[in-house]
């Protein structure tokens, strides 16, 4: 758990982070969102001491992060950046092994961990282990970047716009992979992004920053349904707010079991945003729902989209 208390950081006359107090819960993805210059990246870099705070205190698992040398702290925390920053003169395996080697793990253990991580990130160890970064696509490079961050089993992962430089399709695939990995490992992730859709897709908790201050923090549904100001509403995309809100809920919520309908079926884990799109494109008021084995479960009705969530 990370506990930020009245943290301030100025660069010259600019107050990048201005008295931020925040508790980041373990085992969840917290997304720091905000426009450029809102201080979200600085806030992230304060946590692994790439930037030292002017005043205030940051506790990691109850311990002040300034208690020891910064290197020791950083080796406990995974770090992923937008420009990836793989070491171009090292192979994929050596890149992933960076922190384990710094920590002095035995070679056999390092090699086993590298293969384990490559597999976890969907890269075949035998064919990718010995490649150099320039031989990989952007998406593959960032997979290696994430593997490198996870190598020494950190409980906390800091990600600064990790998928910002990737094409939309690759970005979406990697977002899904990250969600899957986070669930499997139960890691705490602090994610900086200016992409509100990414924040809504991945974040279990959103923290909206502006001019170095927290404007609103809460679950995605909280922020979408009850923005504290017009400005927050604007940032979340007022025009598409409704659709985004539906994106936070899934088909199972409004499923009417036993009812029948015709047409192409939805699955219960699809979002209501997808259901809305299906209603509109097929111009129907009912859609069938089937399970993963294609057995019918029931149907959903267009009118139920208008009801408040239970």
């Amino acid at each position, binding site marked *: 758990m990370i506990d930020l208390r009245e943290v301030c950081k100025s660069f010259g006359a600019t107050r990048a982070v201005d008295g931020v107090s925040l508790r980041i819960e373990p085992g969840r993805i917290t997304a720091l969102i905000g426009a450029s210059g809102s201080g979200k990246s600085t806030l992230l870099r304060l946590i692994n001491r790439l930037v030292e705070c002017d005043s205030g205190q940051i506790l990691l698992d109850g311990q002040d992060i300034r208690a020891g040398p910064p290197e020791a702290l*950083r080796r406990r925390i995974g770090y992923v*950046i937008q420009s990836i*920053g793989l070491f171009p003169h*090292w192979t994929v395996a050596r890149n992933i092994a*960076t922190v384990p080697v*710094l920590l002095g793990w035995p070679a056999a253990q390092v090699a086993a961990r590298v293969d384990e991580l490559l597999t976890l990130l969907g890269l075949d160890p035998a064919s990718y282990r010995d490649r*150099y970064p320039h*031989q990989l696509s952007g998406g593959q490079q960032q997979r290696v970047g994430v593997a490198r961050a996870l190598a020494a089993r950190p409980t906390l992962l*800091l990600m600064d716009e990790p998928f910002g430089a990737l094409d939309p399709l690759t970005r979406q695939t990697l977002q899904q992979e990250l969600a899957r990995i986070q669930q499997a490992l139960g890691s705490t992730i602090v994610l900086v992004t200016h992409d509100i859709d990414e924040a809504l897709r991945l974040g279990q908790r959103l923290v909206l920053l502006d001019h170095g201050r927290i404007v609103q923090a809460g679950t995605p549904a909280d922020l979408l349904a009850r923005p504290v100001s017009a400005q927050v509403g604007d940032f979340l995309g007022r025009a598409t707010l409704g659709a985004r809100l539906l994106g936070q809920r899934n088909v199972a919520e409004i499923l009417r079991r036993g009812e029948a309908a015709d047409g192409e079926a939805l699955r219960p884990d699809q979002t209501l945003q997808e259901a809305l799109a299906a209603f509109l494109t097929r111009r129907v008021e009912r859609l069938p729902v089937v399970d993963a084995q294609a057995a019918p479960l029931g149907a959903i009705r267009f009118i139920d989209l208008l009801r408040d969530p239970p």
Partner: protein
Amino acid sequence: MTTTAPLRAMAGRATAWARDPLPWAIAGLLLLAAGLPRLEPAFAALFPSLDRPMYRQDTFLALLGAHVALVAASSAVALALGFAAGLFVTHPAGAEFRALVETAVAIGQTVPPVAVLAVAAPLIGFGEWPALIALALYGLLPILRGTIAGIESVPPAVLDAATGLGLSRWQRRWQVELPLALPVLLAGVRTSVMINIGTAAIASTVGARTLGSPIIIGLSGFNTAYVLQGALVLAALAVVVDLGFERLSRRLQRWRTTP
């Protein structure tokens, strides 16, 4: 089929070796330096007016060895000083000295080597020492520039990642920054050494024994054959060293060029 495969691999390795220009160039250089006196009849025919058409004060092999030793020693000094100065001025503690160091070394470079030799000789005396000092000073600038440019060519994101992952300042410098700076740094060393191979020939004016000796003696004694003989071996040496650097630079950048 199974018996011919290893044979073909061996043949392949042999032809690859035979197509490699570096060993051939080295062999050519040594052969030229050792065999040049045997070409005396040819030089006699080319320059019929000369009494002694072949330089015989020293063997060309000895001159070649002395030349290489002088260039190697002066380049080693230049490398040590230039690299250390480059490291220092790219470190936060030395950043304020950077402009000063660069200017001082650049001024050193604008003074012609002959002038440095002319000043050094009366101060230190004739022989190898003034030559060594002048060449070392002269080779400093390309190495300093290469070190600074190399370190600056390292992408900031790579350094940010290195720091963020927990490399110490020292580990970052030696494991990430310098290996990535090496190709540009090596280009600086190559320039420095190539300049010094040429400049070392002039050092024979202050009494250093180099491949420049036949050239200088030939020029002052109107013996064109001596000039030609010294120049031939000197040119061959330059080709060999440049090929060597080419090879080294490719080997150091394998991570960049692997298809």
